[in-house]
């Protein structure tokens, strides 16, 4: 850690402002709290919202894990992890169970979270109604008055066009029977993990200047129709490296003759399983 930075990059006043927004978000699950998002030393869309929320939550004793689409070793994850290692001097880890704060881009780890952990999501567009109703004044009014019929119009359009609900990520949820919320672009495979989760789930949207939250053990229901119920979906394969059949998979093209493999998107989970002796179609036991 270099002493030129205040702890976790942001100044204390800013962190206090963000913490107030987080507390308000936790008090009203699913409600989008506006906050004065700061310029961060990275472009919008790279997780400026998530980074600010993480910075406001970090203490020197924390152990931080950062994942991007489930992986610990992609550019975004590596650079954010290094950023906090340098500006806050906190320990980092790749093991989900060891981390106290996990910043994530578009995945929830496969390893179940526990009480005391904080999961921070990076959110590009916090407003679930945005693509149907472009006016912010109107969407706020709709949240205020619980007028959520429009959200089902989107799902109706999916079924009318594709024969089923084709929304595969950023699948809208209803929080505690009150607010409709965009769970950030996580695959809908991860939606059931939002419900009754023992960890604190925080969502930060830097460009849109919104923070929202799910406190531990919050009721989260994915929206659906009675005759077209919600179904979490994944590729119909087992992981080729660790053999897991219950994880979310990435499809990797391996050559230009149609060769492909399916691997766990959660690299930590996959590695842990292989270390424990599991092996898939292509993976040797590590």
């Amino acid at each position, binding site marked *: 850690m270099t002493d030129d930075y205040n702890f976790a990059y942001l100044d204390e006043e800013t962190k206090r402002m963000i913490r107030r927004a987080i507390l308000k978000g936790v008090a009203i699950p699913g409600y989008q709290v506006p906050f004065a998002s700061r310029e961060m030393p990275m472009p919008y869309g790279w997780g400026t919202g998530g980074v600010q929320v993480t910075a406001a939550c970090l203490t020197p004793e924390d152990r931080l894990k950062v994942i991007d689409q489930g992986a610990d070793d992609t550019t975004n994850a590596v650079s954010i992890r290094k950023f906090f290692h340098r500006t806050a001097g906190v320990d980092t880890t790749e093991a989900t169970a060891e981390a106290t704060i996990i910043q994530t881009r578009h995945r929830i780890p496969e390893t179940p979270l526990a009480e005391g952990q904080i999961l921070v999501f990076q959110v590009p567009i916090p407003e679930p109604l945005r693509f*149907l109703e472009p006016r912010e004044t109107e969407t706020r009014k709709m949240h205020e*008055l619980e007028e959520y019929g*429009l959200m089902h*119009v989107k799902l*109706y*359009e999916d079924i*009318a*066009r594709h024969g089923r609900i084709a929304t595969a990520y950023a699948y809208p949820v209803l929080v505690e029977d009150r607010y409709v919320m965009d769970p950030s672009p996580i695959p809908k495979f991860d939606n059931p993990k939002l419900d009754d989760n023992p960890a604190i789930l925080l969502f930060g949207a830097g460009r849109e200047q919104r923070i929202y939250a799910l406190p531990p053990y919050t009721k989260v229901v994915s929206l659906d*129709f009675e*005759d077209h119920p919600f179904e979490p979906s994944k590729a119909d394969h087992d992981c080729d490296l660790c053999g897991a059949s219950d994880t979310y998979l990435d499809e990797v093209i391996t050559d230009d003759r149609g060769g492909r493999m399916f691997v766990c998107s959660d690299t930590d989970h996959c590695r842990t399983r292989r270390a424990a002796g599991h092996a898939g179609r292509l993976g040797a036991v590590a």
Partner: protein
Amino acid sequence: MTPLLSVRDIEKRYGARIGCTGVSFDLFPGEVMGIVGESGSGKSTLLSCLAGHMAPDAGQVIFATRDRGPVDTVTMSEPARRMLARTDWAFVHQNPRDGLRMGVSAGGNVGERLMAVGGRHYGTIRETATDWLARVEIAADRIDDRPSQFSGGMQQRLQIARNLVTGPRLVFMDEPTGGLDVSVQARLLDLLRGLVRRLGLSAIVVTHDLAVVRLLADRLMVMKGGRVVETGLTDQVLDDPQHGYTQLLVSSVLQV
């Protein structure tokens, strides 16, 4: 018989200018009221005040709700008013683009109100939408097309289906035939007249087209400068106009 809608001394000002003032009338169930007048006579302002799109500066708009009886919609809470607007009221805009979601299929447009009042069964919603499209003479195989692929007349008919799907009791129409050519206008009027009579709807129709009110309206209100200058049965007002302005209006219609 209690009136469905009682309007008492509605006034709306834009600064020092009068939008409309001193308008009072009763609308009974099953009755169609026409409001005519030239541009700027305050008829659209009046309609906006009645439909809750605009808050009047003074006056009462008392609507006979299904569950609570007569309620003043001006002072009622906004959620309750918006609920009325999705269930018991309908609003047909002059420009269908204002009343439709152009990026959503015809079926989705018709189904939106059903979903807004808690419809959560896809099959039922789709069935109802198909039924309503047929009632407004839109072929069933167009259900998944977007309104932008429809002609102007079809868009207007779609807007009507979308509004009537929840079985409203009161329909507000703002120049429903504006911008359509005469043969399409005639078909639309025919359709509207059939729907209004068959469903026993009450309606308030704002227009500057006297032919529209002649066909649709039971009673007529003539407005000028924000005030009502003459009221009466439609045929009576059009055939024997008393006020100078009404006489001018009636005599201005071109005879082919």
